[in-house]
């Protein structure tokens, strides 16, 4: 129930229209701090669109995305910030961001929301290690004096770069890719590329990690390794996770909170058990719309 007591991200009345098509319609949901939250729904439900709004790749047509990086998202604070017209503010309770007002790279660097993509987007011509170093661009850029000090070789850049390599090594150890650190990312097998994309996002030290179908195309063994990795990320690094997933067994096993979308509308929201038994969810997944049919389906599923 952490999403009720300690919200990290509050999406309110989020709407995204593409011309005549409403991909997300008046969606409100909350991501709890320290939770693994799953966003599920049939194909074309608007899940990726929600991610794109949260991470700034789309500007929502309407709605508010309040992100309390630290502390508590006090509704009064959120209202004050909204009225002030600013993007972010340091409130009594910590930093507060309005993501819908921020450009994508600011969301990643200031608010610390990282993401992966439904179709993997690694820098395939760069090595595995380079991918993880590029992810630490902003702190390294500062250490190199915006390149001015780095180019003449003074300042803390060398030391910071060594630390960056250490961090990369730590993550590569965790996903079993340390032996392939110097190979091009594009040469890795599919499952390894998925894991690498996740740890690349982790190298930005996110508060919230958004994963778009991380288990897609993985075999059962890789899938269970992924679950372990996600739990480790949450437990050891305190990073909250929001993930889109089609594989119900993965969702039920690792998530603390599930939000279900269908045709851009939220149809269910709650703990995995509640959602699993929600007739509307079952209907949406099995594609029945007749009330009577729903009941027979529910009977069958909960048999």
């Amino acid at each position: 129930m952490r999403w009720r007591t300690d919200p990290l991200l509050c999406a309110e009345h989020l709407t995204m229209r593409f011309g005549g098509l409403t991909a997300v319609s008046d969606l409100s949901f909350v991501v709890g701090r320290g939770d693994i939250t799953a966003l599920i729904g049939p194909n074309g439900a608007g899940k990726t669109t929600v991610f794109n709004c949260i991470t700034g790749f789309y500007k929502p047509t309407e709605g508010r995305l309040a992100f309390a990086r630290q502390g508590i998202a006090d509704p009064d604070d959120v209202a004050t910030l909204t009225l002030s017209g600013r993007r972010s503010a340091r409130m009594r309770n910590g930093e507060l961001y309005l993501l819908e007002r921020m450009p994508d790279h600011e969301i990643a660097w200031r608010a610390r929301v990282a993401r992966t993509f439904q179709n993997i987007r690694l820098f395939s011509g760069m090595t595995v290690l380079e991918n993880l170093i590029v992810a630490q661009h902003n702190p390294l850029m500062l250490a190199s004096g915006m390149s001015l000090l780095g180019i003449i070789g003074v300042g803390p850049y060398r030391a910071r770069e060594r630390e960056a390599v250490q961090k990369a090594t730590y993550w590569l150890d965790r996903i079993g890719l340390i032996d392939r650190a110097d190979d091009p990312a594009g040469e890795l097998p599919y499952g390894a590329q998925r894991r690498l994309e996740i740890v690349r996002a982790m190298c930005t030290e996110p508060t919230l990690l958004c994963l778009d179908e991380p288990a897609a195309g993985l075999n059962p063994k890789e899938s269970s390794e992924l679950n372990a990795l996600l739990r480790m990320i949450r437990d050891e690094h305190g990073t909250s996770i929001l993930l889109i997933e089609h594989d119900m067994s993965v969702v039920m096993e690792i998530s603390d909170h599930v939000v279900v979308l269908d045709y851009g509308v939220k149809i269910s929201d709650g703990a995995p058990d509640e959602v699993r038994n929600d007739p509307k969810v079952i209907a949406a997944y099995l594609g029945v719309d007749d009330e009577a049919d729903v009941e027979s389906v529910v009977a069958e599923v909960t048999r």
Partner: protein
Amino acid sequence: MAAAKPDGVAGFLSAASIRQSMLAALVAAGLAFPILALRAEPDLDNHLVLINRWPLLAWAAAIVFVGHQLAQIPQIGRALKWLLFGVGVLMVGSLIVSALRADFPIYGRLLLAALALTTGGTALAFAAPFDDAHPFAARQRALRAIVAKVAIPLGLLALFAFPLVMLAALGPAGSLKWINNYGVQILIYVMLGWGLNIVVGLAGLLDLGYVAFYAVGAYAYALLSTTFGLSFWICLPLAGVLAAFWGVILGFPVLRLRGDYLAIVTLAFGEIIRIVLINWTDVTNGNAGLSSIPRITFFGAPFTASDNGFAAMFGLEFSPIHRTIFLFYLILCLALLTNVVTLRLRRLPIGRAWEALREDEIACRSLGINTTNTKLTAFALGAMFGGFAGSFFAVRQGFVNPDSFTFMESATILAIVVLGGMGSQVGVAFAAAAMIGGTEILRELDLLKAIFGPDFDPAQYRMLIFGFAMVAMMIWKPRGLVSTRSPSIFLKERKAVAGALVGEGHG
């Protein structure tokens, strides 16, 4: 290289390949039709009459057909690759032999041997067309490491010794051609290629108007020195700053453009600058250009026969070659500066961000990289080096006019970057030497006379031969001379990344 062939190529004389060859011949005929088949000539009354030259067109189509068929045979493809490589080696070799015959003293021979060794070693290591399966391919990779350690320092040493050795060996008159036409001319293009490489090779932003920044640098020096009497050493950084400023000006409107659109806007930018230079006559003196630009001085001492001149200062007999040699060292240092800065930047976050941008812009943004700043710095830095090269150009010529900054120049510089292998510093240097030096060498190759008879004038055909070489390159080495990418950081060992994996940028 079978993988590089388009799908559906089914081998020599198969039905599918014949169909493709016929198509290629048809396209060739279509393209050549207005050039070869039709010709307007004045008759006796001085009226233009149209002459048909159908056999010529048929020949062209037939040659394309046969060539296309022959290219289906893998052995021929490989043989042609080696032929291409061999011609390159032969050209360098014959140049060195013809130089050797010029009664060189021993140190001259040593220098040429060092140059030949560097060139040959680097060519073998980077450009020799071994397939991955070839037993020598592994040794070739090992050779690359050795070349990087030995041949490049050796080559640098030879470059620094080059003008002095030439002067000692050939005297002031004989060495001028070597130092100026080959040395300085090639080095200008090496520098321009390295500058553009930041924008195109690293950041993956296709820029067809790079010559604009060269022009800005040249005019900046010309105007600043003639109006305010500023010295070259003050004008040089100013010209760089001005060119970088214009790089940002170009960068802003094209931030959102990619691919073809970016190419067209940058091309237009290059033309705008040139047309402004032509029409803003009050400042630029239009097509006539600016002349009597102050010449380079040796940190204040002019290269003249006067008492306070360079020659008098060092107790030498006056000779105009001193200035040329100084210009050689100046452009060599400027080019090396470009190279060192680029190599260092590649190991800094900004350089890695450029390459990441070339690979995937969306992913960059998801990692918090400000792609606007990243693109603008690439444009600005590339432009700055173009500006440096431009002021060098102005101080060398003593005269600038808009004719020096046509689209052909941009195209040549871009060709150097593409030919060299996008992003590779060594490749770009060799491509510049091949493109600029190659056209010069063709002028005087006696070897071709020996093949085609004494009446053959290679100078007439050099652009044609050059065009053939470019086409052949694009077929057999489409990724350029150096097609692999060297990682900017490594954990255990630096392994080259195969060109096929490396992105070319989206514009």
